[in-house]
């Protein structure tokens, strides 16, 4: 079970969180022209990288904030977590 540092609450057990997928996906803007390909990429296409992955987590049994985490998909090491409006590199 992972130990995850919520940027608002501190380190908590994985039990309190829900996984939210790739954090780098950007939703196309409302009312904009979107091609089928762009839309499909946004809705369906996800990379499954080996190694560093910047992803979303939701502290559902805590402060209910979504945040970003950078995790190694092989070792599960979490390098960094950040608020949504913060850059993670």
């Amino acid at each position, binding site marked *: *079970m*992972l*130990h995850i540092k919520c940027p608002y609450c501190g380190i908590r*057990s994985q039990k309190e969180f*829900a996984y*939210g997928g790739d954090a780098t996906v950007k*939703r*196309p803007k*409302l*009312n904009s022209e*979107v091609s*089928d390909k762009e*839309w499909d990429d*946004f*809705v*369906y296409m996800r990379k499954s990288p080996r190694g560093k992955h910047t992803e*979303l987590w*939701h502290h*559902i049994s805590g402060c*209910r*904030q*979504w945040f970003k985490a950078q995790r190694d998909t092989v*070792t*599960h090491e*979490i390098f960094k977590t950040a608020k*949504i*409006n913060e850059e993670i590199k």
Partner: protein
Amino acid sequence: MTQSHRLNNIGLINRNKKISFKFNGKKLFGFEGDTLASALLANNIHLVGRSFKYHRPRGLFGAGIDEPNAKLQVVINGQSEPNINATEIELVEGISATSQNCWPSVEFDIGAINNFLKRFFPAGFYYKTFMWPKSFWYRVYEPFIRKAAGLGVGSTEKDKERYEHKYEYCDLLITGSGPSGLASAYAAAKSGAKVILAEDKPRFGGSLLTDDVNIDNLSGKQWADKIISELKEMPNVTLKNRSQVFGYYDHNMLVMFERTGDHLEKKSKYHPRQRLWYIRSKEVILSTGSIERPIVFGNNDTPGIFLASAAKEYMKVYGVVVGKKPLIFTNNDSAYETAIEFKKNGIDPIILDTREEQDTDLINDAKNQGIEIKFSHAVAVANGYKKVKSAKIGKLNSNKTGFENIETVECDCICVSGFWTPTVHLTSQSGNKLKFNKDIDAFVPDKSKQKETTIGAANGSFTLKETIEKSFESGANVAKKLTEKEVNIQVPSVTEKKQKTHDRFWCSPLPKNENPKRFVDFQNDVSVSDIELALREGYRSIEHVKRYTTLGMATDQGRTSNLNGLQLVSNIENKIVPEVGHTTFRPPFTPVTIGTIVGREVGHHYMPTRKSPMHEWHIKNNAVFVDAGAWKRPRYYKQGNENLLEASKREAKNVRENVGICDVTTLGKIDIKGPDSAEFLNRVYTNAWMKLPVGKARYGLMLREDGIVMDDGTTTRISENHYHMTTTTAQAANVLSHLEYYLQIVWPELNVNVVSTTEQWAGAAIAGPKSRELLKKLFPDLDVSNEGLPFMGYVESSLFGVPAKIFRISFSGELAYEINVESDYGLSMWEKLMELGKGLRVQPYGTEALSTLRIEMGHVAGPELDGRTIPSDVSLDGMVSKKKDFIGKRSLVKEAFIKNDRQKIVGLVPTDRKSSIPEGSHIVSDKNAKLPNPKLGHVSSSCWSVENNNPFSLAIMKDGKNMIGKKFFAVSPVHKKTIEVEVISSHYVDPKGERVRS
């Protein structure tokens, strides 16, 4: 029977307390402090079970988790449990054990015929024999394999014991209390670190209890006792005996099970049997020690053959001799201690050492005590069926591939030592690779992946002086990282006997003209010839050899067999062991009871139960409940001998004719506030929200980005910037997360806040033509006329002096209202409604009647919004705005979603107007067509229409809009029913929706 093999002056057992127990029906005695295994051996009982495949007699072999054979069916406290390791269970009064995998008895086992058929049971036997025909698999092969593969029998009764879970955080967890564990714990504890020291046995000390060593002029046992008594006094130390750390997971999360009850004669009512610990430790020290390696020889599975270390432990800890004419068969020095211990207790052993004549302290000790030693000798074959009677031994030739001579010596036990294997299971589970250490011919941990250190014998350090010195250092270093405190500890002086290196000899050659089985893995009956066969048949990867032969796959995880198997493969393949590699270790390290894993989450505690404030009333009024997620909802209120259908018909009919009330507390409620709330709703829902006036409710539909309907419900504008959203019971949590996702990540510029208020409000739906009258009675001062409170209207009032929300919304299709009041007043509101409604013939109705009412109205719910339907599929195209963008809109124009023959919701009635159509039935045009019969759609919801008094169903059907009026068949192979149906509109009752507006 007397304890014929009990010694008088040695052991750590309590001879003042005699304990009676039963083995295979026979009453026997042991002492407090015995294990079941030591008590059996004290009574000279060796034969404890039959082997897995050949049903060969098997006896005790080890003294702890190394034991591969003695898996017993044990009755403790009136409960029967299979596969209990006799070496791990402590003797308590009244315990009763029986052998497994034998019939009719362990002494005379019919299955032993397999032993004579063994050439028919080679490696990969299952794969070769049970290949075809396919149909035989279920009827013949599987039942046969299950029977043959029988270990113990699981109980079918409810487990009466209590199991607990515990979460713990600490600075340092140390697994194993041998010399390295104790030294590191002591050093770390002195620095003030919060330390947990776990030991799987009842006694702390590990090898210190049995090894002949001297630390600071104390014996190993005395030194261990001294350290433990000091640790006990320290508030920052938790000592846990009977506790096995069996899993090492990510981010230094370890799991441990503690045997808290089985060793107690009497337990108080709530005393748990076992406890599972989840331990999150900043640092971990793995001091798991090592396990002795056997040497493989002919018939080496005969009862009476032991690991030399186990024989020594039985003497020194339990005061039990495993035999009175022992042979000690070794390739190293450590077994000499066992021989000397025998000698001390008046028994003359013979030592067979595979090495040339050696000169070390221990060997000289043995010589000086007059122990007979035969160098360059090995055991070739053990003789005896249910017990060792003699052994064929011989002098090895110069390259040790054969014997120069063979002689038979009488013996009643053989104690074997093939040197030591570090216990690397936990370090491997932590993610570390292993590296091969040539000096000890075994794998040791490579670089640490997590915050852990492996020390002592587990790290391949087999001398006590080095182990203790390094362990003190490791403990202090790790603690320094955590507490930033330096500690100065005087490392004790250690005297131990110098040892010579071991001999690389792990498998005796066969004597001429003999071909006895030589077992590598006892528990899975894997012999040398099986491994040879697997390699001959072309299996090369050690992982494949493992699966083909089942080497190391039994519950003992190959603790005594892994390295011998690898050595054998490397010899045959002419490779060195590290090239062969090793198989993966996975949790659990030792078997764990299901009860421990489940803990307290049984029965009612399996998951939390959510109850509405009216729950007690429902119980009092004969409600039959149904689970809706964690909620308990009344399905129907039983009157007299009514069944489900009768009750739901009565309740639904009463709504259509009079008035009914339904507990709708479980609906999800989300409070939405902020200046951008309208804009937000406009993006979340498919329909328009910008112009909803204050005091009005609107039905809304929300999609996922892929265009699939996610949820529906009504949202009401309470005030300018304040909305009250309702969701379905099932989707409440998902919808909240969904809203938070968009507010926090996608559109953070919107100034909106959302919060769940589901539990803050109790809800009652009042439905039926007389509902207005009832509402009027509850709120006499309120204008509830059609003009004062029109359809989709909302007013606030108060009830019992607290705020109440009144919505004119309807799920049943009747004139209806929903009242929300603060949860604490829910029951009072409900009782008041029942009381005021007497004259109006009010009746409560449950979810079954609720479904009936919405189905015949053609209102969709969960079964239609099943994660596969888009708005037009369920005839909600009218809800989809063409003017604005919203979540999922772009998907709705995708090719598959605009096809002409796209699926559509329809109504179905049986042509006989009598037969109910099972939900889940498939719709087909030809009921007799060859399988697979093309499926045109499926029945999503069924009811008995109370309005028309015949069955009615909703279905999702391909090209549904063009199917109205046609006839098909609804087939349900599950219910074995085929019903002719006619397709009609999904709106069976009041298609124009006049009643809700009346």
